[in-house]
């Protein structure tokens, strides 16, 4: 039983650990549809360049990732796989839902094959609205998530309302 699990972590140490976590986040990219290209633009293009925020976009497997970006339409056929890979990620893990489709179904709100919101299958921490959101919006979502991680208590997962990027 370490200090972290028992919740008796001294405050300065908590801050130091949180800062380290904040600036070394490995993101598992779940690119599904149009938003995947905007996510690609945010992660791989020199104009937006996510690495300057301390986010590393290319983990080899979900088992090495800190947070998951679900970008695009989750269909009912795909939903079990999303859940499965989310379960493979180690705690503490976070989920960013990018785009209207992942948030609530978006333009396919009345489609027979689309899951209306990825929050039905995994808990979502940050919602990034837009169809598709600009890369800047995704970056803001990541920055807000980093701020949340900075103020997190090590003993228990931050509990509260999810963040919505405006």
């Amino acid at each position, binding site marked *: 039983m370490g200090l972290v699990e028992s919740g008796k972590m001294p405050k300065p140490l908590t801050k130091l650990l949180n800062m380290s976590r904040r600036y070394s986040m490995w993101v598992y990219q779940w690119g599904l549809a149009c938003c995947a290209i905007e996510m690609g633009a945010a992660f791989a293009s020199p104009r937006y360049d996510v690495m300057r925020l301390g986010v590393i976009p290319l983990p080899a497997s979900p088992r090495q990732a800190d947070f998951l970006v679900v970008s695009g339409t989750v269909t009912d056929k*795909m939903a079990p796989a999303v859940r499965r890979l989310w379960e493979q990620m180690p705690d503490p893990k976070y989920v960013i839902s990018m785009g209207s489709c992942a948030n609530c179904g978006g333009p396919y709100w009345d489609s027979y094959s689309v899951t209306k919101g990825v929050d039905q299958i995994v808990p979502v921490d940050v919602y990034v609205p837009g169809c598709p959101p600009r890369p800047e919006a995704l970056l803001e979502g990541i920055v807000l998530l980093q701020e949340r991680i900075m103020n997190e208590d090590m003993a228990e997962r931050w509990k509260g309302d999810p963040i919505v990027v405006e």
Partner: protein
Amino acid sequence: MSISTENEQLAYIASQAADARVNVEVETDEGMTLNLGPQHPATHGTLRIIAKLDGEKVVAAEPIMGYMHRGYEKLTEVRTYPQVTTLINRIDWLGSFANEVPFILAAEQLMEVEAPPRAQWIRTILFELSRIANVCLFLGDMAVQVGATTPVFYAFRDREFVLNQIERVTGGRFHPNFDRIGGLKDDLPKGWIEETRGALDRMKSFCDEMEELVLGNEIFQARTRNIGVIPGDVALSYGLSGANLRASGVDWDIRRDANVGLVYDQVDWKVWTHPDGDSFARFWVRLQETREACNIIDQLLGSIPSGPIMAKVPRIIKVPAGEAYVATENPLGEMGYYVVSKGDLTPFRVKIRSASFSNMSITPWILKDVFVPDIISILASLYFILGDIDR
């Protein structure tokens, strides 16, 4: 899921075992079964391929689709005609404007309206710009699939210049939703033509860069030459279209041979073909087509006629009863809409003929007797987009 009793645990394991084929390798008597996807970086989204291997050789490969099926054809039956373009933008999400055009042309054919010349010109320009935006990413991505990381950064960098120009006219980087029945929503903004010429110069230098960086690279040639060869007759029998067909030596381009509603007959341009039909040829043809698109836009920018951008159409659009099929040469190949109208606000039935779906159908044939690393490069060179396959 909470598991309290042993029975529940067994039921849980059984439910998990049902889809245990995902991401595992299974050894059988006949060899090994390798599963690729549905979430795999090389599949451009959510395509799943089950390959039966004998050592390093693929004995049989089966694509499994439907992970991105969003039910477009059914949804269009409950949307009014102007609302449909919002949806069909998202079929091929890299060249969105090109998706709207055939549907709008089909509806125009049924209503017997014709867009004014200026609208046709701007449509063609935006059509070719979305082709550049689409193929640009292919040029970078194909290099990634054979092991070079740098070109994709260049592709994303230079693609932004084209997206900026599309955004400046339509207001959307990705999904313009700009085409209307009878014309376009807005005219070009001031100074756009000059800026577009600047973006085109940028794209031309990008093409030169790709030619030096990727096409002339020995490793790239070793990975693509004589790999995944599709002869012309096979390509035709599988219904390939677009650059995949032209890379097999078949000289067919809808823009030249069956053009409807766009002004390709006003420009001097060339259809590029390549006799080899391998992965290298497909890359080469797409590279030349990007250059040719720059050339087409360059000529069209100098000759845009003046006049209105919208024909006279009623405020509430009701399309008379009838049937129409219009296909255009989209970045990925032939994309057509078969629209059946019963005279209502909404289409009665829309059949979407998307290019990637037909291009995809050749995968079991072409992935036979290739090596495992070549699966990736062949799939990348066929260039499909999952939204375009599954719709």
